[in-house]
């Protein structure tokens, strides 16, 4: 009689707990299946193991609640005195081992498939910086930076007047997206210029660390055009939460067109440093460069974040001798977060940033730095072999 009792209550418990579990799964979010063969495999794998552990959980908890319900003193239960049962103990050692094997087999399979390193059709080098990404298309010789877009950046400040909910793709949008072709085997080469970052787009099915001084590889093949968003996932300092990754996957034809347009743009800019710029040109470009490269530390209004990040408004450097200012921006301050931008940015960007910071935030020096001056310095740096201080200079 007792046996049947336990059976019935046990089944009831299984039913109740299953319903609760089902409800928990129904209200929540799940992993994205993604848009690459690998991400779909991972999703499958995730569902398999989630299913297995759920069943284990339901059975264990059902047994427990059956006991809690039936074997309570208030129901007059008398305690049995058994202390062990070799048969039972062997069973619940062997069965979990078998279950684990069932989980390990597909896991191993997916992992091995992923390690297939053959035939990259496109190589993209990704470099993490505090706190933006640099992309270099090795075959097509395109290079650019990709940082948090302005709207998000504005809305994310403490006391911002703009509500994040009104910003489209808040924190998941960049100023320049990574355009990638679909149906193409792409190899990412990940590294970093300062601290460890991690490059993650959930729809690709993996994340991979970008480690300074080391290069990591990861492959993908995107099957559907679309815009895929992700974030840096390794704590990299203050603005770790604000360095998104946005991929725009397009057909190979559209990709070629994009490459051509980028090349044309670059060609137009090629000799940009060699001509004389007007103040307005420098100030406009300078504001953009400043927002993308400098504002994360020195703040949009140049007020800095004391004591870690000095204000540029009225700083001894920004209103002081111009040579020192140039030297600081080119080479940075070793041992601080202030990196050298001499290698990172184009001559006109540096000149523009210098001009901008010397004339914005109430710094009214009236100075103007021509790109040519920086270009000469940059060439001098290369020719003379003077080492840059950042790890990038190694």
């Amino acid at each position, binding site marked *: 009689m007792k046996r049947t009792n336990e059976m019935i209550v046990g089944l009831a418990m299984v039913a109740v707990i299953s319903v609760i579990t089902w409800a928990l799964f129904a209200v929540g979010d799940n992993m994205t299946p993604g848009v690459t063969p690998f991400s779909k495999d991972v999703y499958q794998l995730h569902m398999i193991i989630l299913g297995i552990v759920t069943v284990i959980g339901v059975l264990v908890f059902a047994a427990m609640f059956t006991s809690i319900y039936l074997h309570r003193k208030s129901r007059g239960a008398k305690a049995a005195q058994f202390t062990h049962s070799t048969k039972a103990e062997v069973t619940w050692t062997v069965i979990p081992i078998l279950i684990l094997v069932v989980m390990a087999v597909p896991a191993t399979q997916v992992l091995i498939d992923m390690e297939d390193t053959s035939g990259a059709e496109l190589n993209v*080098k990704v470099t993490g910086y505090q706190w933006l990404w640099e992309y270099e298309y090795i075959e097509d010789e395109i290079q650019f930076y990709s940082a948090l877009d302005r709207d998000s950046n504005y809305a994310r400040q403490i006391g911002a007047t703009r509500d994040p909910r009104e910003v489209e793709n808040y924190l998941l949008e960049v100023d320049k997206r990574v355009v990638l072709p679909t149906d193409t085997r792409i190899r990412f*080469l990940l*590294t970093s210029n300062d601290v460890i970052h991690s490059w993650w787009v959930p729809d690709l099915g993996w994340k991979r660390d970008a480690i300074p*001084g*080391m*290069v990591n*590889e990861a492959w993908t093949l995107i099957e559907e055009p679309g815009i895929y968003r992700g974030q840096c996932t390794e704590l990299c300092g203050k603005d770790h939460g604000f360095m998104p990754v946005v991929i725009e996957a397009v057909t190979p034809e559209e990709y070629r067109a994009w490459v051509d347009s980028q090349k044309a743009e670059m060609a137009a800019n090629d000799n940009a440093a060699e001509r004389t710029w007007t103040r307005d040109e420098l100030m406009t470009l300078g504001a953009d460069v400043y927002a993308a490269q400098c504002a994360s530390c020195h703040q949009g209004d140049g007020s800095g974040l004391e004591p870690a990040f000095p204000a540029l408004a009225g700083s001894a450097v920004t209103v002081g001798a111009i040579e020192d200012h140039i030297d600081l921006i080119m080479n940075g301050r070793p041992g601080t977060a202030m990196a050298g931008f001499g290698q990172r940015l184009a001559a006109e960007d540096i000149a523009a940033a210098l001009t901008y910071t010397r004339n914005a935030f109430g710094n009214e020096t009236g100075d103007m730095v021509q790109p040519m001056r920086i270009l000469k310095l940059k060439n001098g740096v290369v020719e003379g072999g003077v080492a840059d201080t950042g790890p990038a200079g*190694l």
Partner: protein
Amino acid sequence: MASANYYVPHTAKWPIVGSIGLFLLVSGFANWMNGSTIGPWMAIAGAATVILMMFGWFADVIRESEAGLYNDKVDASFRQGMIWFIFSEVMFFGAFFGALFYARIFAVPWIGGEGTGVMTNSLLYPEFQAAWPTNGPAGLGGDFKTIGAFELPLINTLILLTSGWTITMAHWALKKMQRKALVGWMLATVALGVIFLFLQSYEYVHAYRDLGLTLGSGIYGSTFFMLTGFHGLHVTVGSIMLLVIAFRCMKGHFKPDHHFGFEAVAWYWHFVDVVWLVLFLFVYVV
């Protein structure tokens, strides 16, 4: 004479002194590293307090021991304590040996382009080839030469091995209650430890001055000086402990069947010895 009950001291005044000492010592170091001028003074005060604590604490223990308050169980507890302390030291050295092996077996070859490091090498360090010793692709700290294994280090190995033998002789002498011989062997052991330290410092000076080998010499310099440095620190501590034991032997402490203080230090000395052998093998020879 040993009491029947397990001896539990009523109150202990020294531990809190030790805590304050340690606190001053390390916060002094921390301040020092941040460039504060009181840092060094705090550290010195802390070190002095810790030394004071050790004297006081050990004096209490020695007094209680000589008064026969410790029964065999107390003795066994001390043994357990010492064994596990040495085990923790082994693990501490393990971390640094781990770093050495990791760098040699994985990190340097990867940077040199082996296995998964192909792209690392070709993109970042096209000129760099894996080798050991190395100060890395950036050649940190400039060119350097290493210290040959079969020069001073070999002599140092022989010195430490000999000291392992002298301390065993001392132990035998103690067991046979030959006080004179005991003191002699103890002093010999201390002397060997001091000679070792002297040669080691000589070697350091040589490395810094003539070989260009410094803590800043990339991963080789880092592992070399941290391993030999921590070992040297342990030899220093060990020598001081040996000296204290030698004095106690002179004062007539220890009995053939009751001399845990002596044994603890001997164990420690053997441990320092073994660490050196491993170090000699992996830092100098291969």
